């Protein structure tokens, strides 16, 4: 029996589950002698058959239990309690080496709280029952989950950082060889539907978890026409679940009869295991933000993913290099989860013709920036996935666009957070790195002066916040000094604690101005909430740590802003010199 027991709770949907496969590999690499148990929702159990490195998969049937509660008119029923307690006992009686909770919800935090382990990572509860986030990366995740416009690190990287050991995160992985029957079965489905070995298979994943994340079925139809018209050897597979049948039938029924044989509607007709193999057989997948997109990343199929509505491309974008993300060029994208949009125009921004042009280039292996420059792609921002300097996934413009202050801040914030959250990478960013980032944007300098003044303003705010942190730390140190000297003056201590509260408020008010600063504030607040000390000494020590961390994040962000600022200025001055020389 393997001695090191590790438990992973991942009660999320299929996409998130696949995104955690990279972490599984990392865990196994760090703890080769471990026995890893994964807890998943039964609805997504099937996909786990393709996971490497997991020794045991257990389901947690939330739907069934909640159904029982519903049948019981939401009343307490001891049978449910007893069932749950028994179910949990198989985990609560084990002392785990590590428990990871990859589920970002309140329910799983209570699950986590009930377990015994040497180390916990993820969402849990403290002794008093308050929600806490264990691990800096989890804190960061909490922040960006609330402030989506500051989201800049892919979920796979976030999962990867939950285990701090130095090791490349690698990629998401679905091992199809683990289920040979599924392969055979998928092959049979394809051959029964006339898909030949030499067909170019383009798959459409037409579904999504919300209506706002769905590209229109009419556009998928138009895209199908354009693709088949361009190449008769293209076979289009429409993939989706039972509830995607409407879209599938629509496309199949409305395609011109001469193209009819090129379309295979598989919506609601495949198992998850077959789907994995069908996606693997596909040459490219055109998809909304779906679990199928992550399957494609897991089996190495090319992807063009269309984002609309609430789809947060940065945290859930495809975790594989050179894949295409198409975003609508509209400032409100992505909308917050709470938004109930009744003017769903972002989907209209993404024309079928634009997608066709991109898919064609991708299929022809010619998806280079220079090949896109001359194309009219309408109101979209195509991005391509690349690993950045620190080995984190990044999505960079496929077409050069003007560097906005928002984009610039997000890039800098990303690099800044990566360098502080990952202890194994040097936190230096060279001029070349900066140049590489800036190279993705157009040379237009019309508005550069605005960027400089915007950056100067941002720096003023950051400086203020750094000062607030320093002041609070000074106050805390003075209390600690008194406590250790056993001469506590309560009036003085009260005044110092009030001053610290004031710093808190000031940090919040200043942090609210910029999304990324607000994320840092949420991280700080979460740390504050997690303080478990009951005495003044413990409170002060913990608070000191929290402020110190806050300050570090701010200082690091500031340093990078200054470096970027200088580099941008240098570029501009070089260009104006060139202009000057030319004019001479």
């Amino acid at each position, binding site marked *: 029996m393997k001695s090191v027991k590790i438990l992973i709770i991942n009660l999320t949907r299929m996409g998130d589950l696949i995104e955690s496969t990279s972490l599984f590999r990392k865990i196994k690499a760090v703890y080769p002698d471990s026995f890893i148990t994964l807890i998943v929702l039964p609805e997504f159990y099937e996909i786990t058959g393709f996971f490497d490195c997991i020794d045991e998969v257990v389901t947690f049937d*939330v*739907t069934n*239990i*909640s*159904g029982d*509660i*519903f049948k019981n*008119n*939401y*009343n*307490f029923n*001891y049978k*449910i*309690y*007893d069932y*749950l*307690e028994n179910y*949990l006992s198989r985990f*609560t009686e084990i002392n785990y080496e590590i428990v990871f909770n990859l589920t970002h*919800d*309140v*329910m799983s935090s*209570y*699950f986590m*709280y*009930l377990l015994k382990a040497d180390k916990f990572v993820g969402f849990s*509860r403290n*002794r*008093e*029952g308050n929600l806490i986030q264990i691990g800096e990366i989890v804190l960061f995740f909490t922040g960006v989950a609330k402030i989506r416009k500051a989201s800049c690190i892919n979920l796979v990287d976030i999962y990867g950082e939950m285990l701090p050991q130095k090791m490349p995160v690698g990629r998401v992985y679905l091992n199809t060889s683990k289920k040979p029957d599924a392969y055979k079965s998928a092959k049979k489905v394809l051959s029964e539907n006339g898909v030949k070995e030499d067909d170019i298979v383009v798959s459409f994943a037409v579904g999504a978890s919300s209506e706002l994340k769905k590209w229109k079925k009419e556009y998928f139809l138009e895209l199908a026409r354009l693709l088949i018209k361009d190449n008769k050897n293209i076979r289009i597979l429409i993939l989706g679940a039972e509830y995607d049948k409407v879209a599938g039938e629509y496309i199949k029924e409305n395609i011109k009869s001469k193209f009819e044989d090129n379309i295979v509607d598989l919506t609601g007709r495949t198992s998850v295991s077959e789907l994995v193999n069908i996606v693997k057989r596909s040459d490219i997948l055109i998809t909304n933000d779906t679990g199928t997109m992550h399957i494609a990343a897991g089996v190495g199929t090319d992807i063009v993913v269309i984002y609309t509505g609430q789809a947060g491309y940065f945290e859930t974008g495809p975790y594989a290099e050179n894949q295409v993300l198409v975003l609508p060029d509209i400032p409100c994208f992505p909308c917050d989860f709470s938004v109930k949009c009744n003017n769903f125009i972002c989907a209209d921004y993404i024309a079928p013709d634009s997608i066709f042009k991109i898919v064609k280039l991708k299929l022809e292996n010619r998806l280079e920036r220079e090949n896109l420059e001359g194309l009219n792609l309408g109101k979209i921002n195509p991005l391509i996935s690349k690993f950045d300097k620190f080995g984190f996934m990044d999505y960079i413009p496929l077409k050069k666009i003007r560097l906005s202050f928002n984009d610039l801040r997000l890039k800098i914030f990303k690099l800044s957070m990566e360098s502080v959250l990952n202890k194994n990478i040097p936190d230096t960013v060279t001029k070349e790195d900066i140049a590489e980032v800036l190279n993705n944007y157009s040379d237009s300098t019309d508005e550069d002066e605005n960027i400089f003044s915007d950056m100067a303003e941002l720096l003023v705010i950051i400086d203020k916040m750094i000062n607030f942190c320093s002041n609070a730390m000074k106050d805390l140190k003075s209390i600690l000094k008194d406590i250790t000297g056993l001469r506590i003056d*309560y*009036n003085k201590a*009260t*005044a110092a*604690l*009030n001053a610290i509260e004031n710093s808190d408020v000031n940090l919040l008010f200043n942090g609210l101005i910029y999304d990324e600063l607000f994320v840092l504030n949420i991280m700080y607040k979460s740390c504050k909430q997690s303080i478990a000390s009951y005495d003044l000494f413990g409170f002060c020590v913990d608070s000191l740590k929290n402020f110190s961390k806050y300050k570090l994040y701010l200082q690091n962000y500031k340093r990078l802003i200054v470096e970027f600022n200088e580099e941008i200025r240098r570029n501009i001055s070089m260009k104006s010199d060139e202009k000057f020389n030319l004019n001479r």
Partner: protein
Amino acid sequence: MDFFKTNLEKIKRKNINLYNLLISGNNLDLEFNLAVIKTKKDGLNSLRINNITIHSVYDPESEAVKWAKANLDVSGHRSGRIIIFGLGAGYHVKKMIKELLEITGKKGRMPVIDVIEPALETLLFLLKNFDFSDILDYINIIIYDNGKDGEPEKSLNLSEYNLLLFSLPSYQKIFGDIYSLIFKKYTIGQLFNVSKFKISVVQPIYGGSSTIGNYIHKAFLNEGYNADIIDFSHFYQAYKSFENYTTNSADLEALRQDFLNVLGETLMVKIRENPPDLLLFMAQAPVNRTVLSKIREMGIKTAYWFVEDFRLMTYWDKIAPFVDYFFTIQKDDFSERLKGLGINNYYYMELACLPDFHRKLNTYEIDKKDMDFYGSGVSFAGAGYYNRRNMFLKLTNIRGLKIWGRDWDMNSPLGLFIKNNNNGFTEEEAVKIYNYSKININLHSSSYHWDINPEGDFLNPRFYEIMGCGGFQLVDYRKYMKPEFEPGKDFAVFKDIIDLKRKIEYYLEHEDERNEIARHGYEKVGKYHTYERRVRDIMDIVLINSFDSFKSKFISRRVGIDKLLDEIKENEELYNIIKSMIDKGLIRGGKVSVDELAEYVKSGGGRLSKAEAILLLIQQIRQKITIF
């Protein structure tokens, strides 16, 4: 044969208070016709009270066996406590003890048995004529005198879980009113589910009663009721604005009346959508006879808390006849006036404090800045009424005097002492003032007495709130201070300005005495004068008097709760959580929702236990339910 001495000896050992009562109770006015009668069984006597025979004259022992068995069969044997209404000659009590001893065996836990005898006179007669020496060790005798001061009722604790109430049928006939009251209280205590009882507190559009409305609402919530507030305060601006359209007072009054009628209709609309079980109107709530009548037609019970001086605010006679319960802060004269109008539904209900809010600041909460700003040697918080303006002018030589409130004359020398620029203070600020002042003066307002109202009766809110905050209070004498309070122990009293000045000087110098009085007052209000306590008093009155209307609320609690507790008995942690909810009256019908349980867990402190975490987990799972 006189058994009094033997019985008394036993009682003395067990209950000295009862013993003292019994030995001092020989000079009672005799109300009952009492007689010992012989039965057909040799040596066994029965008795008659008011010509009703208490025990069988044929075979009182067999009758008692049947009585004990029947009651225990129906009610089960697992009760922790039994109340028997009627001591009689004790045959039934004796047999019940015997039955219980057999059931519980030597090791089993014998339930506590309280026997209620409804009158001291009958008890004395029984103790003289019957030998209770073999049962007195097993029982507690309680004289129930209609709960005059609430004490017997408190010792009865009719809300205790799994309490059984048995009675002698003959006693029920003789003491019908008392039995009915006990039965109702028992039923309410055992079966009434606070969380299923909806109360709406209807607020006025302006005025001090809205603050009290907020406090009582919070207290209802604290007591577990489903309470909400119907707030009309946002209409105040509109109400005031009519002044801008006319200077004719008759027109203005007519417009305002029409406006209040609209608000009355608004209230009707609101309660039609979500009818409460009880509407509690605070003084000056926008209702009139028509609206009140309509509400009564809907079958909703109405209560009105008239927290005003009836001599100054005289509209009470237009309200009191049309509500089910009219609560007042004055009695005596006011009661007479109400009675004179044929109104009998009035109840004295004094004000209180809300310990959640009116509280002593903890050491770590003490703020130096606040202390400097709100604190002082002597302070007064309240509006600048006529009598206050007069009196405080005489205190201008007191160093550090701070006056908080509105409507003071800033042009008078007092202007120097008025804080916040005559803009009043918030309730939160009041708490700080009471906490940080060495002496809190309280002078009840009057618009026509020069300084102190010599006949002042009711106690203002501040009276309770200062003590609730642990503050030391120096207050003008009021008639209703006694017997509820002990002037001089709970607070200090002044009778005129000279006395006030002298006492200010004295208490500033005697910190220990001041602190001791503040502590005493703080404990007193915490115990007896909280809004939570008022909620209990109000609801006792409402539930007992509207017992039949609320019968449907008294669902079968015991059966369900027994089943629930039986199911979870192996799980000690869970058992303790649910049992504690039951004991607090939060679970009444044997059913508790997943949310109620989770909210209860969340309201507790300390380390989250395994059972608590599982309950919270279940609540989260419940929230994942999607209904298609």
